[in-house]
């Protein structure tokens, strides 16, 4: 089922937490809302769920207007950050709850619960209570409860944030595989850019109650439109240098060579960085390479400030006068204090709005 969110706003008293969000989510799409805490991503999700009512705007699920519909009439499932399991019921009771409420006969309930429990690998735990199992198992139960009735839309509110890093990585893959197989439209809320990048078909980065950019993970990474997105996605973050528009339409920058190298097409490629406005010239750290010795091939020179070997790659912190930059390179012999030449991958230069 597709989900349409149109100009949705939400205010709590005088505080406007969602400021006119609009997005069309296609049937079967894995859509991630990514942003720091307080950006309105969870509130937006809760409005899709029907747990909050919008102050203005419209929400459609499968074309039907459900803006003010009760959650139970929306045919959605949801996974909560704290799982939202029923502590007084056994795992079986938890998983069959949505079926029981909907009056599914017992024999059918039993087979459905058993098959979904098997899929989630929790068959042997069905008679336990939620208090007697681990965090990862609880999340599996929550997923099983959500999947047992074949929902049309699956909403997930930071479902992995309570798990430890290793388990989070496993569950991430598992969830993605599961909902892709079942072709369920999924809206997933997280503050973790790795989760967003690895799972999403499309990401919406949110800030201060608004979606600042909606794009596929790679596009989001390759072409961040604003400084906020550029810094939020990717680690280490994109190198950004303040740039000014010159009367002739080109950009000027504290490191003039970058402004000169910026391809003409980039000047108009970013829809939110209008010509002749102040902006940033950005380049991802992996698109800077170090040239030792043959200074002639380098675009500019820099002094190495710090070298961080991570095994697979190495982070090299560079000083160019007062400007600090970071390059991610393969293994290197450069050392702090050394003067190196830096080569820029020209086609990776971007104009990023403030």
């Amino acid at each position, binding site marked *: 089922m597709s989900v349409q969110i149109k100009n949705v706003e939400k205010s709590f008293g005088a505080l406007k937490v969602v400021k006119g969000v609009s997005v069309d989510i296609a049937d079967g799409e894995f859509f991630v809302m990514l942003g720091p805490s307080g950006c309105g991503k969870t509130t937006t999700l809760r409005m899709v769920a*029907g*747990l909050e009512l919008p102050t203005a705007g419209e929400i459609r699920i499968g074309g039907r207007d459900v803006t003010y519909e009760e*959650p139970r009439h929306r045919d*959605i499932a949801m996974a909560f950050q704290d799982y*939202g399991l029923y*502590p*007084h019921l056994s795992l079986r009771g938890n998983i069959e*709850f949505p079926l029981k409420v909907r009056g599914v006969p017992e024999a059918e309930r039993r087979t459905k619960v058993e098959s979904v429990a098997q899929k989630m690998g929790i068959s042997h735990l069905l008679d336990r209570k939620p208090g007697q199992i681990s965090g990862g198992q609880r999340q599996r139960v929550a997923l099983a409860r959500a999947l047992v009735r074949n929902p049309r839309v699956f909403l997930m509110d930071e479902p992995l944030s309570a798990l430890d890093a290793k388990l989070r990585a496993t569950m991430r893959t598992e969830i993605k595989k599961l909902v892709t197989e079942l072709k369920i439209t999924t809206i997933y809320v997280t503050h973790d850019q790795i989760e967003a990048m690895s799972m999403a078909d499309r990401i919406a980065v949110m800030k201060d109650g608004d979606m600042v950019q909606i794009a596929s993970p790679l596009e989001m990474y390759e072409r961040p439109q604003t400084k906020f997105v550029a810094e939020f996605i990717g680690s280490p973050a994109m190198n950004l240098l303040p740039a000014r528009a010159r009367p002739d339409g080109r950009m000027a920058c504290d490191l003039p060579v970058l402004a000169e190298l910026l391809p003409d097409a980039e000047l108009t490629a970013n829809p939110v960085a209008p010509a002749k406005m102040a902006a940033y010239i950005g380049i991802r750290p992996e698109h800077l390479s170090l040239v030792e010795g043959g200074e002639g091939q380098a675009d500019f020179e820099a002094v190495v400030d710090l070298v961080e070997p991570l095994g697979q790659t190495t982070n090299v912190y560079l000083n160019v006068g007062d400007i600090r930059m970071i390059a991610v390179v393969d293994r290197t012999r450069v050392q702090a204090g050394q003067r190196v030449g830096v080569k820029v991958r020209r086609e990776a230069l971007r104009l990023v709005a403030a």
Partner: protein
Amino acid sequence: MSATLARHKARERRRAVTLWLLAVSVTVFFFFPVYWMFSSAFKTDEVSSTFPPVFTFAPSMDNFVHLFLEAEAGKALWNSFFIVTIATLLAMIAGTMAAYALARFDIKGKNAMAIEILSVRMLPPIVSVIPLFMIARWLGIFDTPWLLIAVYTLSGLPFVVWIMRVFIQDIPQSVEEAAMIDGCGRIEAFWRVTLPLLLPGLAATMVIVFMFAWNEFLLASLLTSSDAKTLPVIAANAIKPKAIAFGLACAAGVIMSMPVIVLVLMMQKYLVQGLTLGAVKG
């Protein structure tokens, strides 16, 4: 090596014995008045007034016979039971619903409202006697059970609201929201999920509200004259200006404490459950 072990064991045993003795003496200290009340209830007045007190005597039912045949304890017991049960139920139902609204809904000025509700309890009960008396006369419910039912419901309500509000806030909202997404309306979600989780809290609150109303004497003695007298009023009658009928007082005390003991035993399962269930976190 084995000597130190033996010494260690001996010290452990001494410690256990000391603790046990301490526990026994505390129990005796608290239990003795109860024991004395129960035993005195079966003593005749001659026996209970002897000094030094006697511990062996022929039990007599005189006090109970007197209470039920002459002091109308049967009617008072029924009055107490009827009034306190209805008042407790009303206070629990209305109070829990109010507590739910205050805990879960976004109501303007709800904290002021909660304080307002609590202020009922800040009033010394004696202050309300004259207005209550006048209202009761006007409504024609003086000396009927309904007046005390209203009074006990009102005085139990703030307590229920404040305690249950905390219990409800302790239940993660996501549990109820999960139920609503799983197909329940708000009321069904409350019924199927919130209420079962609240049982321990409800049990504890109910026992306390019941005990408050069951033992209440001041208002009961001033707002009844004969028909609606409750047990504490009858029990107080044992204290006469010239002498105290210890046997009668103790027998009344026994009758009064029985329902509370039964109630606590009945609720024990839930009270213990409250300690072990807990919400699911992390």
